[in-house]
């Protein structure tokens, strides 16, 4: 089955999609499974908790809402729709081409879904009813494997054919402005101020001012980087931090596109960096976690505050909370969720995501 769902933490419970197609809820204080729900499809999206529901998109084209509270109290094996619409699943369409790969976007009012059929869907949060759908790409030009992002009343989507489209949040209608690049965009867009930052297959990171037809800057400015910018960058206090599949982490001035520093992890950086207080956390594909202290000035020689090797294959998004980093291992043999204690610089605990017979 596969998939690279990441982990999310909410109220002391870790939610993660497993490689055998289950949503697993793990109680972090007892380090034991609270419940699991079998989907029987690959899960690429990281679960998102909102209220009592945890939302997950599947490679079989479904959006599921599972009731976290009710499931923690009772042993459910199927969706519980009978008791006050606790849970629901939403088959957007039956075709396999509608696989959901990109993380869902959950706002105050709706869930937004990018689908492999080139459409963006807006669903009601309570029952999954369709608010609108918007056709962004035709069948020939492909799939939407990047997540949308919202600013004000507009939703922005990046595409594999090199566009950024702006849609009305209310109706899904395409707005006048769009941006076209020569190469496809590999990463989901990130908005900081009035600028969109995103990675491309042409080995550049783009900064695009909303409303402009030309990029504000492309990084690197001279020759391309060593590989694609697959992961979405993060922006903090005017600095863009972008991991690249060439194994480097780049810190770039958001306004000018000037490189401030770079760090060579020597292995591809597939997952987006994460911020926890003043700490910037980066993992590479070989399972090394690098921690940078952003409260001190980073000079010419970039040395991580901590380097922790967990020996896992890391391609999934990871999250960090209260000094702990939650990382899912992609290795089929290990199939673990690792919880790394940054202060101690070691794995605090781990949980097997292989289903017990």
């Amino acid at each position, binding site marked *: 089955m596969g998939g690279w769902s990441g982990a999310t933490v909410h109220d002391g419970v870790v939610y993660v999609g497993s490689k055998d197609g289950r949503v697993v809820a793990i109680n972090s204080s007892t380090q034991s499974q609270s419940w699991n729900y079998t989907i029987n499809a690959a899960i690429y999206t990281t679960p998102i908790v909102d209220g009592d529901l945890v939302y997950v998109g599947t490679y079989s084209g479904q959006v599921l809402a599972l009731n976290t509270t009710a499931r923690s109290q009772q042993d459910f094996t199927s969706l519980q729709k009978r008791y006050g619409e606790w849970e629901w699943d939403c088959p957007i369409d039956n075709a396999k081409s509608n696989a959901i790969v990109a993380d869902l976007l959950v706002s105050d009012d709706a869930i937004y879904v990018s689908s492999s059929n080139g459409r963006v869907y807006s669903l009601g949060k309570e029952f999954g009813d369709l608010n609108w759908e918007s056709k962004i790409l035709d069948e*020939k030009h492909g799939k939407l494997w990047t997540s949308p992002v919202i600013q004000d009343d507009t939703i922005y989507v990046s595409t594999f054919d090199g566009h950024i489209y702006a849609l009305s949040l209310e109706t899904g209608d395409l707005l006048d402005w769009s941006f076209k690049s*020569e190469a496809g965009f590999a990463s989901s867009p990130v908005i900081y101020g009035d600028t969109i930052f995103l990675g491309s*297959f*042409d080995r550049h990171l783009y900064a695009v001012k909303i409303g402009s037809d030309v990029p504000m800057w492309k990084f690197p400015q001279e020759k391309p980087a060593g*590989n694609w910018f*697959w992961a979405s960058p993060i922006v903090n206090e005017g600095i863009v931090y972008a991991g690249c599949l060439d194994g480097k982490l780049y810190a770039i001035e958001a306004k000018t596109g000037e490189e401030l520093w770079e760090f060579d992890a020597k292995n591809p950086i597939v997952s987006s960096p994460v911020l926890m207080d003043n700490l910037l956390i980066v993992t590479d594909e070989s399972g090394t976690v690098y921690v940078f202290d952003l409260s001190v000035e980073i000079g010419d020689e970039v040395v991580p505050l901590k380097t922790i090797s967990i020996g896992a294959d890391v391609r999934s998004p990871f999250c960090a909370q209260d000094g702990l980093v939650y990382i899912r291992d992609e290795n089929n043999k290990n199939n673990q969720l690792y919880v790394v204690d940054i202060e101690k610089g070691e794995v605090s605990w781990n949980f097997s995501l292989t289903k017990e017979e």
Partner: protein
Amino acid sequence: MGPGDIWNLIIGNPVLNVLIALSHLLFGEFGLAIIALTVIVRLITWPLTKRQLDSTKALQDMQPKLQELQKKYGKNQQKLQQEMMKLYKEAGVNPLGCLWPMLVQFPIWIALYQAIMKALATTPENLLNLAQRLYSWDIVNQAIPLSSRFLWLDLGRPDPYWILAIIVGGTMWLQQKMTQAPAVDPRQQSTNRMMLLMMPLMFGFLTLMFPSGLALYWAVSNIITIITQYFFTGSWGYLKFRSPFQSKPVKGK
């Protein structure tokens, strides 16, 4: 460095990157890139093809002499074979020479199959894995990800309408029929007849199993073979040739 890495370095990655670059040059059409690559492969293997065509033509020219031998030694198979080999040797013809272009194609098929599956990257993992196989050429990276649609086909999947299977089978039959020299004994005649049917049927069947991008390569390659054979030999070869055993069947003992 393992054998897999060496294969990728020498054959796999070059085929993959050339295919993607061609796709970018040919309006983003991966199907056109496969057709162009087929033409390039056929140009590279032209010396071998020419040898095969020379053999075919020489065998064609020798037919009257071979039939004479058949009449003369028809009842003594051993003697017939000896005399035939002598004749082949005198004419400098190797009847198995036409197998080489076929054998050379096998690694190309394997590389192409791998390249098609990798380039189309139908799953998210495949797309991510592709990053480590690409050259730093702008033309390659700007073409990613590729569209698998071409005409009615999804090049990463078999043709559900069987049209490509019929084209591959039909062109393979025609190509074989043009080059298959008539048999000199009834046993060989029956083997030939079976081969003439089996190969097109087998490739037709494979077309239903493999991605249609690979089948497109077979179809175009067969068509190129038919055209070059026609112009090189100046005729349809053995297409209209009737075996002596068809008109005068030899009675069994």
